[in-house]
């Protein structure tokens, strides 16, 4: 069976040929304030049952492949968090537009 023919989702990365020759960046990278805030918001939304970790993952997995690989870890998260908050009606598109206008 030819692995490249299987309809793998792009986040499903185990053993994927195009990454097998890519070096692993083993250097420490300190988290930024942005990273920690996104992480904390995710935890609060989980604890308050606003959004589960499974919903977060679904949102990350729905990011188009090129963006998925281009965006840093927590940039994927804030995109998924926003996607989920909109989908679930926790915030509306109009509210988000207004908040972005003033941000």
């Amino acid at each position, binding site marked *: *069976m030819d*692995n490249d023919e*299987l*309809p*793998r*989702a792009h986040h*499903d990365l*185990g*053993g994927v040929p195009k990454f097998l020759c890519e070096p692993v960046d083993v250097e420490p990278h300190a988290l930024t304030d942005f990273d920690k805030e996104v992480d904390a918001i995710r935890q609060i939304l989980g604890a308050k049952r606003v959004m*589960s970790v*499974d*919903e977060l*993952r*679904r949102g990350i*997995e*729905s990011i188009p492949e090129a963006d998925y690989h281009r965006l840093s870890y927590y940039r994927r998260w804030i995109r998924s968090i926003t996607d989920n908050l909109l989908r*679930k009606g926790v915030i509306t598109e109009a509210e988000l537009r207004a908040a972005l206008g003033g941000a």
Partner: protein
Amino acid sequence: MMLAPGSAVRVRFDWPETRGPVHIRTPWYLRGHTGTVVRHLGDFPNPEDLAFARPAEKRALYHVLFAQGSVWPEDHPGDELLVELYEHWLEPA
């Protein structure tokens, strides 16, 4: 169905990814492969439903062992893969 340790199981060769939006915790590289149940880890709400905020039934979760060489060409004899898989992805082998 409760799978006893040592049971031979096959991971379903199924690709729900091709049928619409899904969230799946069974890695692509194991689909269709045969492994051995190590133990039952507990019962957990099905993440395939949790991901869409649907009511999620609990499903048995198993630790299943595979020979590296049965999954990948880059085999070192004896090496293994141990993966958490839900009951609805396993069938008797």
